[in-house]
């Protein structure tokens, strides 16, 4: 009896093992064209706040015609998944993000991406929104466009808590040195573990402040920088070291991004640098994560002193279309991409995650709404024709140096066991090792 029972149970369990998850279906009986795409901008991911409802709005707009289903997948290994799916010829119709080097070196040469140039060129509603730099970067020598060029730019500056720090001047218009002299012993939340993200943003601003720093950073967009033994970098690093030693919040050594964010939101630091997507963390709905009397309403934002924002338009966009997609599916993909570049959706995106769409004429209601989100309004007000945008240092150096070596040495820079020269020498050595 016991044996029979266990066999029946085993069989049942075995059957459930072979029951699958939902399969991709191109179209259903009702004539609705339907696709399923994996996305990491789902669930707990910061990007989900805007992206998930956006897809729902698209599905509502095209009800009975198109439908996109999202599969929530973890951000970790997302690029690996895309590569493997591509190798099997099983790419989703719309591909989100991915590994940029791989996209340029494998996906494009092997014809995995659908050329959208004809469509973009004949669709001014979409083309007119695109940033000139982005469009130029995404257009190949023979005129093809494989990645959907960006329409928005989100310059990264920093946030400050007016309950602790109340600058008397417009920070972004101050020279960097004056600003550093003015902050006294104000605390900055740095992250120095993981890839040292917050410290890297400040370092980028400090590099941009050096003579020729802009150009030096820009040069890394085309060819990764491997030599850091120069005055620009050494000066910038030694100024970063001063900041780390004099103005870092108490937990900075070995702090992850999470530690830094929590230091800021518990009044242990008056400043933190991060992208404008952080603005949702300062809204009342997130109050449960505040402590020690922190109030999101006190937070203001600014570009870096010297009118510098960290941003790069000359890169691939967020989306591309699989060349294996059927005609119907491509129609759907085009409809979706056109949809996300409609003025309403772009404005919605800017309100949710910050940034600006230079080619868009903003509506009254948008400007009003943006004014209500203090930090976004601050960044928008700071951005003018004089503003300089530079790519983040982490994006212009070899990946292993950006992901591992840079962050690995920051604690030693902070505690003084490495000098700026030694730090730069180390980076150079590791960058050469990464490319040789």
């Amino acid at each position, binding site marked *: 009896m016991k044996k029979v029972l266990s066999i029946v149970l085993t069989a049942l369990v075995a059957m459930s093992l072979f029951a699958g998850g939902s399969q991709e279906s191109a179209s259903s009986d009702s004539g609705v064209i339907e696709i399923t795409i994996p996305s990491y901008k789902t669930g707990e991911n910061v990007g989900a706040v805007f992206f998930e409802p956006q897809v729902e709005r698209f599905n509502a707009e095209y009800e009975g015609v198109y439908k996109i289903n999202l599969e929530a997948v973890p951000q970790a290994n997302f690029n690996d998944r895309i590569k493997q799916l591509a190798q099997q010829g099983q790419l989703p119709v719309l591909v989100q993000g991915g590994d940029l*080097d*791989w996209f340029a*070196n*494998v996906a494009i040469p092997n014809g995995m991406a659908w050329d959208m140039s004809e469509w973009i060129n004949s669709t001014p509603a979409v083309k007119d929104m695109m940033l000139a730099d982005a469009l130029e970067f995404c257009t190949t020598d023979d005129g093809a466009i494989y990645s959907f060029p960006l329409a928005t730019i989100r310059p990264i500056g920093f946030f400050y808590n007016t309950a602790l720090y109340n600058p008397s001047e417009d920070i972004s218009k101050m020279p960097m040195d004056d600003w550093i002299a003015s902050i006294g012993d104000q605390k900055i939340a740095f992250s*120095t*573990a993981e890839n040292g993200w917050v410290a890297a943003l400040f370092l980028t601003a400090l590099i941009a402040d050096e003579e020729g720093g802009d150009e030096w950073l820009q040069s890394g967009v085309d060819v990764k920088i491997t030599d850091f033994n120069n005055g620009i970098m050494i000066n910038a690093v030694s100024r970063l070291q001063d900041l780390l030693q004099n103005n870092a919040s*108490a*937990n900075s*050594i*070995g702090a*992850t991004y999470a530690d830094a964010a929590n230091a800021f939101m518990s009044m242990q630091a008056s400043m933190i640098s991060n992208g404008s997507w952080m603005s949702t963390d300062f809204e009342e709905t997130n109050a449960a994560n505040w402590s020690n009397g922190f109030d999101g309403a006190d937070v203001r934002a600014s570009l870096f002193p010297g009118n510098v924002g960290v941003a790069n338009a000359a890169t691939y966009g967020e989306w591309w279309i699989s060349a294996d997609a059927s005609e119907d599916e491509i129609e759907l993909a085009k409809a979706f991409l056109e949809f996300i570049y409609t003025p309403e959706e772009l404005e919605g995106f800017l309100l949710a995650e910050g940034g600006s769409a230079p080619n868009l004429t903003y509506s009254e209601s948008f400007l009003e709404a943006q004014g209500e989100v203090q930090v976004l309004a601050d960044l928008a007000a700071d951005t003018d024709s004089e503003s300089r945008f530079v790519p983040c240092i982490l994006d212009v150096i*070899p*990946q*292993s140096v950006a*992901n*591992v*070596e840079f*962050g*690995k*040495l920051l*604690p*030693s820079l902070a*505690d003084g*066991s*490495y000098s700026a020269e030694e730090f730069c020498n*180390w980076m150079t050595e590791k960058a050469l*090792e*990464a*490319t*040789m």
Partner: protein
Amino acid sequence: MTRASLRTRKNYKWIYLFLLPTLIIFLLFYFVPIIQVFFTSFSSWDGFNSPSFNGVDNYMTLFSRSSFHLALRNLLIWSLIAATVHVGFGVIVAFIFYRQPAGWKLTRTLFMIPNVISAAAWAMIYRFIFNNQFGVLNQLIRTVNPDFSVNWFYSSPWAFIAVTLTWVFYAVIVALVVHGDLMNIPQEINEAAVIDGASPWQLISRIQLPLCRASIGTSIIISISSRITMYEQISLTTAGGPGDDTISLSMMLVSAVMDYRYGFANAIGVIMFTLGIIILLVVNRLLKMNESVY
């Protein structure tokens, strides 16, 4: 020996039938990767385009790297600690379990917890424990010495010690394996030794310990192999720093993959293989693990 081979000859069909499923698993999941790792280690390969043969260049580059020397030094120290302190602690715990003091079952269950938690989560927990500002360890030390301040994972030489502490006493596998072997010792052997007047200490050192040498050897091999492959405990704590204080071959391998240098990464992989095989053969020989115990 002769008797064994006689039995073997008679049973060839069965022997290979018994090996077949494992062989299939091996061929499906490991054969291609091993061949690929080996051959591409002699090439420059970005993982996209076809590899171009470059002889032993990858190995020469690797051998000339100071980080490689440090990684080998670290591996050597960690392996020695694994084979002595780690395995030794596990053996002690196994002998304690063998005597079945009150609460030993509970202890055994709790000892397994670190293995129930993934290495990634465990590393994260340890980052909290070793945190200078609010970490448990430093707060405890500060009750004795209020001025104590050490950034465990981020300063020399503490980082190496801290990484070692994340695994050195978690010897539950050793304890289970050795305990299992102890349980298999026939009671008559123990009884005979006691009748012959062996002291409890002599019983352990002369009888029980030698009879466990297969499981102790297994433990040493497993724990050294874990040191060769150890990755999350480093990447999520020190990332190999400060400087190259806690660098490991696995960290170097992953960095090379990040830079699309698969040929170089696979050369590191081959070195890891080779070290693993050497350890396996040496420990096997030293502890005479191929010979039946009884």
